């Protein structure tokens, strides 16, 4: 490595071996360079500068989501599978040979009829659940449907007739009636949006998104339903929300009443609905926030407080169910100030202190502990 002695900062920046060490160091390169720097102390400053330049000058690459790649790959594989199964679509030259056998012609026609019949049948049955979402309201108000598409990079606010506010994320699309029905308010969403719904207990509010129906009376929540993803997530900020699949056989009945049926979500809870598996997973939002008003935010200062009391106080502040065994935890005292941590940090610190652990199950926090008596 002798030739590096006369290197300038620029020489280092454009040296392949140097870049390799800086960008993806291995054991060997690390050892080699450290040794070299030790023997060439005067080059230390240059090395530091060159390293800073190589690391900080980032090539800005366009992003593409993994889901988008998967979608295109699946589509491509689907196409090559189709063209391999029916090669005569691609290569007409082969046709005369095959069709010179009369019985093959008949067999092919029968097969064609069967396949097209099956396709028509499966298409018409598959369309069924979709009808509820898109066809119905359009029939009822043919001329008063508004569709908004947020083609900008910034969020867009859409005000609805009933005073509800929808914040549509970039590339989101929403469709709604200019005048809502007498019995219910309905919107259709593709993409991501935050809803702040005006309270009207007489007219429930429905959001249809990628096969999931969300029903609320008056709350705020976020829905993410991207066209190219099979998952829909609903995160509740305030109030209560109920969700069910559009394919639910009891859909009519569930949407009819004023009560919230189906899976009910509370603040800070989130549901992930997977269309393919028709499965819903309830969990907590990533960063739960307190549900109490700012002015009423409790103090999280504890001195020799039983852990059971601590959990109760936290559960109340966040509107989350925390399940624990009060008998076991009443003998676990805690002294801590936990005003500035997120919910997960708080739980983590407490569990560390009292030698417990926690997990999120079905949108609730479950504490596992063996107690603190020795």
């Amino acid at each position: 490595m002798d030739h590096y002695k006369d290197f300038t900062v620029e020489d280092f920046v454009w040296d392949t071996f140097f870049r390799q060490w800086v960008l993806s160091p291995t054991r060997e390169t690390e050892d080699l360079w450290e040794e070299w720097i030790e023997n060439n102390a005067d080059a230390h400053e240059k090395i530091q500068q060159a390293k800073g330049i190589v690391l900080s000058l980032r090539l800005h690459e366009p992003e593409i989501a993994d889901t988008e790649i998967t979608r295109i790959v699946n589509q491509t594989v689907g196409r090559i599978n189709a063209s391999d199964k029916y090669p005569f679509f691609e290569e007409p030259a082969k046709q005369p040979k095959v069709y010179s056998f009369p019985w093959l012609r008949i067999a092919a026609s029968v097969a064609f009829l069967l396949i097209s019949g099956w396709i028509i049948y499966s298409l018409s049955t598959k369309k069924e659940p979709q009808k509820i979402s898109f066809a119905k309201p359009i029939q009822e108000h043919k001329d008063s449907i508004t569709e908004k598409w947020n083609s900008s990079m910034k969020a867009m606010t859409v005000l609805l007739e009933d005073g509800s506010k929808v914040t549509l994320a970039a590339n989101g699309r929403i469709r709604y009636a200019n005048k809502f029905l007498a019995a219910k308010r309905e919107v259709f969403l593709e993409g991501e949006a935050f809803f702040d719904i005006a309270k009207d207990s007489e007219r429930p509010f429905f959001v249809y998104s990628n096969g999931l129906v969300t029903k609320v009376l008056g709350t705020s929540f976020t829905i993410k339903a991207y066209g190219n993803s099979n998952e829909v997530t609903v995160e509740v900020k305030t109030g209560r929300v109920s969700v069910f699949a559009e394919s639910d056989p009891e859909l009519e009945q569930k949407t009819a009443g004023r009560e919230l049926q189906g899976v009910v979500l509370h603040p800070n809870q989130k549901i992930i609905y997977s269309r393919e598996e028709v499965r819903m997973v309830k969990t907590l939002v990533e960063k739960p926030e307190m549900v109490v008003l700012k002015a009423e935010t409790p103090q999280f200062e504890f001195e020799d407080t039983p852990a059971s009391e601590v959990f109760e106080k936290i559960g109340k502040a966040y509107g989350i169910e925390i399940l624990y065994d009060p008998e076991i935890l009443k003998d676990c005292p805690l002294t801590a100030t936990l005003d500035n941590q997120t919910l997960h940090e708080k739980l983590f610190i407490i569990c560390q202190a009292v030698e417990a652990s926690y997990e999120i199950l079905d949108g609730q926090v479950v504490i596992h502990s063996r107690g603190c008596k020795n």
Partner: protein
Amino acid sequence: MKPHSQPPRSSDDNVLWQRFLSGDVVAFEHLMSSHFRVLFRYGCKFSRDQEFVKDSVQDLFLHLWEKRERLRADVAVKPYMMASLRRLMHRSTSSKSWVGEGDLEKADEAFDLEFSVEQQYINNESTLVRTRQLEKLLMELPKRQKEVVYLKFFQELSREQISEVMAVSPQTVSNLLQIAIKQLKKHWKAEFLTFFLIHLFI
């Protein structure tokens, strides 16, 4: 440059490639998903229309599948795909501009790089200034020099691989690279000095 943007090792690629040539759809799927991001990013240097780039990458793989029986088994997979994408995109942009769709003649000429300077790695003012200057100089390089620099330093391809991707001789690659680096170093010093002097006297 980030580790996840790199496709798997080339030896894995070659095994997959041979399985793909024998008609293995699973291998084809793996090849496509592991190279999609690199190819998409490379394609975006030639066109700002991301949908067009996605379509081009998809077309590339459909073509590869169709003519898999006539392909060589011993290619270096990543450079081969990059070269094919480059040809395919240039062909379709030139045929589009033939039809008269917009200003695609320009797009055919383009090789756009975008850089950003991440300050958390820099601990003093003069390094920051040098990095900014370098960024500016890189942007000002002629497009073929820019492409060589991109393939060499940001895709870590060898001279031979670059010559295959860009369809020029290895000697041309060396020349282009040498001119580009000389340019970057020379101007860099000069600009750095002027900046420093201005800074001192203000």
